[in-house]
């Protein structure tokens, strides 16, 4: 892999990777560290990475890093505490999406990760399985459970409104 191809990967995937990690870990500094480490590992192994699977490779490295961090440090800050304008150029979204992102924060880590990979990155179940090291069936179960929870959350909030 040439330097140019590596840099193209940075350009194409670093934002998505950062978003995925940040949404999971809710800590800007740690999220940045994980992204930096991920690309460092990618650079070191660049000649062994299949060019068609660069994105999956990056997400795999990042996912396992963030799982390690979460397990090592259970003390997680609230995503709400993070100033949106420090990481986002889009700070306005619909009420529904606000509620939904609120609901996402309530999901268990594994369900949250697979739903983010599914909805944000559009990965298929087998790809999510490859990234997370879960079986495809586990991925499906976690997504189904997650959706049920989100639906229930939305319905309950709508009922209150």
């Amino acid at each position: 892999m040439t330097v140019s191809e590596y840099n193209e990967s940075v350009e194409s995937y670093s934002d998505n990777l950062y978003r995925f990690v940040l949404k999971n870990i809710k800590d800007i500094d740690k999220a940045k560290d994980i992204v930096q480490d991920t690309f460092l590992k990618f650079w070191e192994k660049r000649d062994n990475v299949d060019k068609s699977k660069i994105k999956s490779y990056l997400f795999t490295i990042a996912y396992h890093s963030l799982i390690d961090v979460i397990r090592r440090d259970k003390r997680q800050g609230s995503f709400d505490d993070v100033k949106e304008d420090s990481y986002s150029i889009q700070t306005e979204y619909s009420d529904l999406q606000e509620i939904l992102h609120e609901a996402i924060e309530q999901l268990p880590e594994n369900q949250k990760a697979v739903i983010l990979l599914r909805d944000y990155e559009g990965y298929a179940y087998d790809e999510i399985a490859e990234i997370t090291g879960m079986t495809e069936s586990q991925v499906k179960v976690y997504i189904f459970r997650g959706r049920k929870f989100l639906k229930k959350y939305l319905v309950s909030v709508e009922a209150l409104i």
Partner: protein
Amino acid sequence: MSLITKNNYEAYLLDYVEETLSPDLIEELMLFFENNPELKEDLDDFKIHELTAPEFELLDKDQFKKENNLITLINYDTFLIAEIEGLNSSEVSGQLNLFLSKNSSLKKEFMAYQKTKLVALSIIFKEKESLFQKETKVISLYWWFSAVAAAVIVLFWFNSFNNSIERQYFPLAEIDEVILIEDENEDLFRFYVLDEEKLQTAIIEKKIVNEDSKQAYKIKNKIHQELKTNDDANVFASLLEQDEILDTLELKDVSLQENEIKIEEILYAENSVKITYVDEVLDNRTLPPVKKKMSKFDIFRKVIKQQVKTKILDKGRDGILFAENAKPFNFIRGKNKK
């Protein structure tokens, strides 16, 4: 005599209402009421109190039967999620639509599931610049030669104007002295340049074949004097043996002159760095005898290649441009010493 009397007519009347009375007894019961018109009201009362089943929508029991339907009121959740996940086949989607049309109250649930799809936030990683790697410039052989030629011309021109200016680059090695070493078993052609700073010397060692079939080494005169003895030569040899031998040269057909490194082929380097160089191994059994005379280009190329391989030089830190076929560029600062 009639079976029906004022004492038992009610029992017959109940049977009549429940339609279990035989036609003969019905006829007899009707006859009884005609003969006793004061009791006929009881007959009318029973008809009034007859219960009428209220009209209500019956549940479709089949909707609970799994054997009849893929989608039931028990498992519909799974199919609703599968639908928004795009996992249902067209056939199953059709069944789901049919199911929802029969159970309109569940359409809201389906809509709620549709809303669980996240819309990605646009988040920018601002430290992206730190992730980029710098391109290493690769210079083609043509340009390399051109650059070296240009550098040599400039240096000659510069020296012709001002010989008093101290050179920026100092020689790594030069050949000043020949030491004969009686080691007839030695058949290797070796070329070593060692760290001048650390050893306070730089060495070019080269075996030549003299007329007496003895081997000679040309060693720079800055080499410690003790190296002139055999014992010290052995010490020196043991040092060299640690290095990987990359080249041997068939010597028998190589003349002294051909194998000699000429005085103008003095090596220069930008800084004093350790250079260990041994040429590549050639198998004399399979290859024809090689008459090999190292050009300066060959030497530099392989020296640099070896240095980088052994991590003596850092390509990035030392700024060495290293082309695919191992052509050093800015390391080369050589010029002829006359």
